[in-house]
């Protein structure tokens, strides 16, 4: 028979079993059960959980980088220890950099550019990647992007000579003088690097040249006066002579170069400028003699050869044999060099040597299966020689299938149209040029000079007009 269970007082009842996170204790009078939370255990467990979770996540991340994407140099410790995570970023950046180089080699240019940009984004201090990206942009015909990328590196590698020299070189080569001045005068100093002092004559020369190219001859002269070292630097003589020339002191310009040449007869830059200024100032005999000496000292130097050909360019009497001899040797030496031939092509166009320009055009087709840019030089030479109807014919022929190439020299198209009485066509091109050069006054000045050189001052005046 079941008997009813006797009811015990609360103090004597059995307490529930203890948990790992808490237990019951009896205390008080009468004794009562009281639940006590084991905070230490809970916190330890939570900490262990968080730690395990973090390590799992970080390990997964490491696995993703190191195993899934096979990025070399990603260490587990670098992923886990947050202060070391920049090393992971660097490893990823280096990986992207290698990929970008491979893509560029494979001629997948767009992907190479994107990947190189990602490499620089991941590891902005990786100067090699930055220089590579800048080189890619230059090769792709985007010098402004190249300069932007390089200037972005000043924050990370301001003291690195490679970056400094590449910025200066790129800006000078691509005629981005405003950018050059900003970098030298503001951006490098902001990171404690002063390049425009007497200890860096190359950078001072770059600044001087930038000012000169931007048409600020007075500013260039003020700069040269403030830096006595520049006056003594033979390498500065051609630039300072140009300053003199721009300020109307033509004889002083020549005299300065003569002094520099006496001081350092081996300096090719000074020799070249000396011949040029002697020729410009009408000292033909001196120019001839100096050009011979320049070439004798530097028989394989393209600048010496081209300057000789320019100075002896009358190709009459005794000049003719000399000219042909040097021309043949120039061609034998440089027949495969598009850059050297382009210098001669430019000269042929500006001198109106249609035969030379046409030879170079034929040679280009033979060597590279491409008539450009020598077809444009040929058209230019016809314009300069006054054979405007022939120039018109050539320009028209080329425009049928090669309008994109001609667009890069539309100023010749303007001269051809103007010379053949199609003034409205010419003005339309001038209008386009004006728009195109609105933010590039250096280029506009260059084109204006070219119009003057080719005898189309009226077009130069049109271009100079503000609308």
């Amino acid at each position: 028979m079941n008997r009813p269970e006797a009811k015990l007082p609360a103090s004597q009842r059995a307490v529930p079993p203890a948990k790992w996170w808490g237990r019951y204790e009896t205390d008080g009078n009468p004794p009562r059960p009281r639940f006590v939370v084991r905070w230490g255990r809970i916190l330890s467990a939570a900490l262990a959980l968080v730690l395990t979770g973090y390590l799992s996540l970080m390990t997964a991340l490491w696995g993703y980088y190191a195993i899934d994407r096979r990025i070399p140099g990603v260490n587990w410790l670098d992923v886990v220890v947050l202060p070391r995570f920049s090393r992971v970023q660097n490893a990823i950046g280096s990986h992207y950099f290698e990929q970008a180089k491979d893509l560029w080699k494979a001629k997948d240019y767009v992907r190479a550019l994107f990947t190189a940009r990602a490499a620089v984004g991941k590891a902005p201090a990786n100067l090699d990647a930055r220089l590579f990206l800048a080189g890619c942009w230059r090769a792709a015909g985007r010098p402004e992007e190249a300069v932007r990328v390089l200037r972005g590196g000043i924050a990370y590698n301001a003291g690195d000579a490679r970056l400094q020299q590449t910025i200066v070189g790129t800006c000078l080569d691509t005629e981005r003088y405003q950018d050059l001045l900003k970098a030298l005068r503001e951006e490098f100093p902001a990171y404690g690097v002063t390049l425009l002092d007497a200890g860096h004559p190359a950078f001072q020369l770059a600044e001087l040249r930038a000012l000169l190219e931007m048409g600020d001859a007075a500013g260039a002269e003020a700069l040269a006066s403030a830096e006595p070292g520049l006056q003594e630097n033979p390498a500065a003589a051609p630039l300072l002579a140009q300053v003199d020339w721009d300020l109307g002191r033509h004889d002083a310009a020549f005299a300065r170069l003569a002094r520099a040449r006496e001081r350092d007869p081996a300096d090719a830059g000074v020799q070249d400028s000396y011949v040029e200024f002697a020729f410009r100032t009408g000292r033909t005999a001196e120019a001839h003699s100096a050009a011979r000496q320049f070439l004798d000292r530097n028989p394989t130097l393209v600048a010496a050869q081209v300057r000789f050909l320019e100075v002896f360019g009358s190709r009459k009497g005794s000049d003719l044999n000399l000219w042909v001899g040097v021309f043949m040797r120039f061609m034998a030496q440089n027949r495969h060099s598009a850059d050297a031939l382009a210098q001669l092509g430019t000269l042929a166009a500006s001198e109106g040597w249609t035969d030379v320009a046409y030879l170079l055009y034929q040679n280009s087709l033979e060597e590279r299966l491409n008539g450009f840019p020598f077809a444009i030089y040929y058209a230019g030479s016809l314009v300069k020689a006054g054979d405007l109807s022939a120039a018109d014919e050539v320009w028209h022929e080329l425009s049928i299938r090669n309008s994109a190439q001609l667009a890069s020299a539309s100023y010749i198209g303007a001269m051809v149209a103007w010379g053949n009485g199609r003034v409205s066509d010419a003005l339309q091109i001038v209008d386009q040029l004006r728009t195109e050069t609105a933010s590039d006054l250096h280029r506009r000045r260059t084109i204006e000079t070219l119009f003057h050189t080719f005898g189309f001052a009226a077009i130069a005046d049109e271009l100079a007009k503000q609308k």
Partner: protein
Amino acid sequence: MENLPTRLTVRTALLCALVVGGPWIAARAEGTPDGSQAVGAQLQQQQLERLLRSRLPAAPSSAIEGAARDFTDHLRQVSPIAAESLSTGRMDPDDLSSRVDVYLGDHPELTSRPATAAADSPRLRVAKLLEKDPDLAASDQERRALADRFLGRLGELSASSLENLMAGRMSDDELQSRVSVFAEDCRAEKNRVAVDPATAAVPGIVDSFEKANLGPVTERPDSICFKGVEDEGDKRREFVVFKKRPNKIRIHMIENGLVIGVIGFDGSVAWREALGKPAARLGGPAAAALEESARFDDPLVGYRERGADVRLESPTGASPISLRITEADGSARIETLDPTTFSETSLRKLRAGGGWAETRFRDYRKFGNLNLSYTQENWSGGSLRSTTRITDVNVDPGLLDRFFSYPRYPNFGFMDLMGGLAVIQARGAHGAPSAGQPAGTAP
């Protein structure tokens, strides 16, 4: 087109080697393409295609490529400066993107239909006019197919007329007149087909051949040049060939890296020039061979217009397809095509002295729309006589008409230059100051 010009001119090079004379020496000058130009061109194509692909996700690759080309042409017409910026990769991405959007807005057919819609408007105009000729095409589908043939034939006859039509500049009267002539041609053709089934399949085969090897009429190049070498036994000959529409050709023969002979035909005068000799006119069989080689297009292209007869030699459906082309002057050749790719696999021609000379083509590679055979074998009497390998190709390189004309130089010419270089090279070989080491100003 180009597989055949390549082949014919190579044969001409052989002929001209005899004409010009002089031994050929094995030496190969690799072309050095302009790196930055190649980069710019590649970049232009890749950027454009990425943009177009994002705007036209459903379009096939061929349609994207076509749209990219159309866009570039369009840009060249409306803004050469922008086109130049694009070609050199200098165009701002946002600018490019917005221009592409505008272009697509102007061409709704591209966004609504993925492929070959660009030509619909003129195609529909033609198809509408063809409604008057129900005997030729009864249904819309047939009329559109016939309109395609009309466009192709118009391009063969006059590229500028086709451009006018495509740009909507051709007047209704002119179009009506051209369509009427075309309809009459089709009727005549149909009647011939009725009596000669061997010609019935030819237009379709030729269309397929053109599509596979040459691309759309408007995008075919106006000029081409290529370098190559020909091996015959232990002799190796280097050459460069330049060709321009409709029938201009110039061939350089190279020895030791220098041009030792040039032959040319400007459409009326055949000429030759060799080292140390003045230019002279060519005549007789050499001139005739050069003139024949000068034809820019393949013999199958425009055969009707020049009065040639083409008949299917092989049974229908047989492989390879064999076509006999009989020219108006009675000369004949047999061309074989691969039925899958429609690439030309061989060409046989009856020689003057009897017997067939055969050229076999392989190693096809795409150069833009062109499908070019880079290796060509010349067989005769059942044995391999020579093998020609093309090493470099370029299209529309800026060839001027003057380049093909009989040379007239006021001072010194190209062969004078080559002669001078040869002298300098010879002096270098004998220890005198070489080309690379000029000795000062002494001439």
